[in-house]
């Protein structure tokens, strides 16, 4: 099976001018998604009007406004932040806002499928930025139409009408009317050709102010429905026994004992992809369908499956790390070469070289993968926790053959995602099982299914080399990486492009160091790889921010001063990958100086205490950490204090940004402390939280400050930005305290071993 990359199937059609207006796309290119699209504009617009203005706004008579949310909610708070944008421009009181979920909206055109409500999906910390203009335009257009309706009703010029929250007023005529009174008239008006001007920062009443999660009450009373909570009439539960060995296939199976389990209804094999081939589902296996989750799990336990010999049966972590070092001893693919690195290195007064290992890690969202699917003869209904509803639609189409128009995809709230739910393998599985049985199916993944069938963050071995002049200034820099690229099984992916998701040439220190080289070696391990929150930035920030401290230490410089000296070398640099078009090093310096100040960086600390700092630019946003630790003589580590700062341009909902800064920091630390996925005999070793120990509250210090520092009036992404600097700030603090340099993650028991030896 071949698939196209995520974004390629859905594109804006080449619309005629008329259609362009009806589609509500503004000249700026963004969608006026409050407005009906294409032919739907006429069909959906009842002449007598309705309570709805377009797809997103539903104004009730009592003044409450239901705002549609078309984006996945994975814990990042988008279902609160996006309605804030609509409410701001529509001019309503926040207390009147309620939200409703919108399904995937795609429309078939002569040019393929296009979006009905605007692009849907979250990844790369773009959930807010992709919708920033577009959601405000939805609100502003709604407000304009309400004012037009009032002007018509009162027979006054539009210019004399304005709004105050929930009302249109015309002072000249002494008139006012609530939105609820006007909406039926407004909804029947022709759509404006373009959005009215949007508010500027000074006028914001809602945007930029901290707002609590709109759904918190439902969550804390157990009412919220996550994907796994979906229950439908006639629904059956399914689990799959997947090949324990990577890329193993089913040679045969005995389901006698399984079928003897009360409640088991059906057992059949599921075919997966060829090794290394693009996939819709990941693994070969045998499905067990039952009338309850428990029966399905018990039935699976009783299953006897004979697996074929997999080409990956001898894969192991040991082999992987060994091969990486062997590769690094040779010559790789030079993927970036600026200045003359070899000559500069040869001319330098001092050369510093260190090797770091960053492991494979699992997403491990607390809600394992799951999907509700009901595939009927010529239609299907899917409800899934997903970051990519269009991916879910494509997967369902690919495995069932049902036209995408006839596949209804709804997004449930996701119990975490972290990049795992960009892939929709579980949707494909559920559709296959529903189509085979004809039943509505809730596909359940157990924790071990989830941990052993993930798209892991690629592990890799990095060799960093720096050349310094006699003043201790860095003049040459190279990073040589041997890793398993996450692009390894993309369709039509040439080997020479495999480095692209693992090294970002425009990152620090490109603009600061004249002679700069990146070299890549690909290790074809069978372990599946994918995007893990902040992808390669988390990995590279650890390596680069650790190495900077090593340079500082070995040249007698202060780690903060060294960073500031490098960052101060340029004002701005072009940044061609995601997060560009420019990176401003001064924004990193500002954060670094701030966190250093807060933690009293220069203060002499007692024996056994130390601080570390780090900073990184990720997907347009800037973050820095200062961490204070104590380490006992036995090597027991305590994180004593954390200062975390983010510059996300403009924080639309500072409360949500703070939450991400807290959670992202903890994610970075949790992963650095204990987490690693390993492979033995072609099988993932870790199965559950007992050997994949996420951080607990006891490791999170009560001294934990977060600082959300605005820079201008343009929001950047948030969700991934706080993760990268956390781990190196921690390991730099460990070095500062103990002199022990952590060059391999996770930290695990390295410190105890080294301190005791």
């Amino acid at each position: 099976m071949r698939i196209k990359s995520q974004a390629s199937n859905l594109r804006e059609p080449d619309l005629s001018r008329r259609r362009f207006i009806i589609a509500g796309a503004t000249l700026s290119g963004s969608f006026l998604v409050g407005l009906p699209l294409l032919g739907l504009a006429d069909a959906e617009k009842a002449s007598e009007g309705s309570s709805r203005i377009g797809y997103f706004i539903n104004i009730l008579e009592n003044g409450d406004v239901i705002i549609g949310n078309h984006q996945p909610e994975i814990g990042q708070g988008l279902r609160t932040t996006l309605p804030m944008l609509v409410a701001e421009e529509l001019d309503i009181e926040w207390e009147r806002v309620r939200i409703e979920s919108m399904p995937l909206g795609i429309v078939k055109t002569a040019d393929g499928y296009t979006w009905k409500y605007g692009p849907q999906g979250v990844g790369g910390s773009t959930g807010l930025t992709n919708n920033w203009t577009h959601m405000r335009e939805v609100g502003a257009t709604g407000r304009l139409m309400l004012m037009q309706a009032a002007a018509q009703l009162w027979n006054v010029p539009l210019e004399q009408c304005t709004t105050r929250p929930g009302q249109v007023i015309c002072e000249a005529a002494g008139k006012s009317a609530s939105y609820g009174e006007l909406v039926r008239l407004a909804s029947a008006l022709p759509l404006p050709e373009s959005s009215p001007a949007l508010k500027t920062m000074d006028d914001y009443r809602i945007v930029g102010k901290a707002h609590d999660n709109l759904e918190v009450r439902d969550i804390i009373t157990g009412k919220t429905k996550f994907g796994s909570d979906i229950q439908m009439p006639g629904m059956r539960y399914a689990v799959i026994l997947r090949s324990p060995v990577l890329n193993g296939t089913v040679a045969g199976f005995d389901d006698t004992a399984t079928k003897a389990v009360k409640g088991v209804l059906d057992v059949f094999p599921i075919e997966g992809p060829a090794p290394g081939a693009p996939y819709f589902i990941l693994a070969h296996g045998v499905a067990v369908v039952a009338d309850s989750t428990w029966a399905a799990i018990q039935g699976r336990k009783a299953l006897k499956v004979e697996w074929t010999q997999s080409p990956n049966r001898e894969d192991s972590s040991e082999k992987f790390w060994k091969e990486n070092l062997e590769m690094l001893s040779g010559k790789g693919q030079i993927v970036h070469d600026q200045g003359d690195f070899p000559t500069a290195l040869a001319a330098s007064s001092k050369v510093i070289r260190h090797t770091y290992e960053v492991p494979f890690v699992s997403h491990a969202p607390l809600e394992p993968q799951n999907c509700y699917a009901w595939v009927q003869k010529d239609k299907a209904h899917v409800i899934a926790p997903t970051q990519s509803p269009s991916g879910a639609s494509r997967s369902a189409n690919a495995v069932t053959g049902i036209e995408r128009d006839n596949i209804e995809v709804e997004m449930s709230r996701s119990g975490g995602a972290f990049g795992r739910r960009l892939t929709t393998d579980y949707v494909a599985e559920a559709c296959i099982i529903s189509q085979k049985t004809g039943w509505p199916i809730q596909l359940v993944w157990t924790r071990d299914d989830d941990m052993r069938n993930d798209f892991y963050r690629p592990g890799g071995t990095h060799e960093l080399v720096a050349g310094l002049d006699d003043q201790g200034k860095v003049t040459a820099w190279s990073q040589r990486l041997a890793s398993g690229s996450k692009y390894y099984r993309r369709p039509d992916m040439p080997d020479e492009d495999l480095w692209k998701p693992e090294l970002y040439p425009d990152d620090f220190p490109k603009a600061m160091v004249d002679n700069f080289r990146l070299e890549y070696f690909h290790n074809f391990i069978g372990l599946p790889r994918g995007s893990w929150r902040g992808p390669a930035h988390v990995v590279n920030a650890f390596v680069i921010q650790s190495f900077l401290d090593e340079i500082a230490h070995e040249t007698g410089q202060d780690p903060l001063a060294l960073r500031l000296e490098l960052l101060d070398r340029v004002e701005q640099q072009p940044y061609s990958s995601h997060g560009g078009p420019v990176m401003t090093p001064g924004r990193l310096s500002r954060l670094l100086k701030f966190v250093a100040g807060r933690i009293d960086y220069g203060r002499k600390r007692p024996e056994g205490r130390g601080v570390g700092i780090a900073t990184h630019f990720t997907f347009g946003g800037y973050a820095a950490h200062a961490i204070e630790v104590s380490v006992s003589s036995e090597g027991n580590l305590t994180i004593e204090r954390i200062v975390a700062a983010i510059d996300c341009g403009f924080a639309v909902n500072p409360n949500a940004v703070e939450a991400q800064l807290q959670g992202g920091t903890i994610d970075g630390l949790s992963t650095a402390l204990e987490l690693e996925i390993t492979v033995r005999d072609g099988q993932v070793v870790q199965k559950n939280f007992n050997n994949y120990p996420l951080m607990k509250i006891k490791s999170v210090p009560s001294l934990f400050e977060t600082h959300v520092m605005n820079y201008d009036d343009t929001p950047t992404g948030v969700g991934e930005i706080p993760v990268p600097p956390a781990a190196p700030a921690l390991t730099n603090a460990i070095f500062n305290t103990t002199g022990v340099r952590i060059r391999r993650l996770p930290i695990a028991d390295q410190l105890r071993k080294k301190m005791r030896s």
Partner: protein
Amino acid sequence: MINFHVNGRAVQFDGDPDTRLLWALRDTLQLTGTKYGCGIGSCGSCTVHVNGKAKRSCITPVSSMAGKSVTTIEGLAGTDGKLHPVQQAWLEHDVPQCGYCQPGLIMTTVDFLQKHPEPTNEIINTNIDNLCRCGTYVRVRKAIHRAAELSAREK
């Protein structure tokens, strides 16, 4: 047939008595507020109260429930909708991110505060071991202290 009470309601379970309480609550009684996270009693997402004490329902056979009284997150607030002080504190601190682990954390905290009405950070650290993958721990800690305050006020 196993007879017990859930959120004050008498229930009878006639399936496999080995079924874990978690699945009986979710699949049979449609009380989906209690979550599956690990199946080995490690993450705490499935925490409910059995006769008032926190219990990890993913490793608790329903057969052991005979004659007992179970409270789930759905039964924690008053019938008038008034939130439990722990829920109120969670609301005030806007604790959840994805929200999946929160019902279990709340049920764990309710029991914890009964045993430790005036918890220090140290006591929290040694007693609360639920997992939150989103890392809401900073707010969880604040909310626990706040819940202790609210509970004391109610007494």
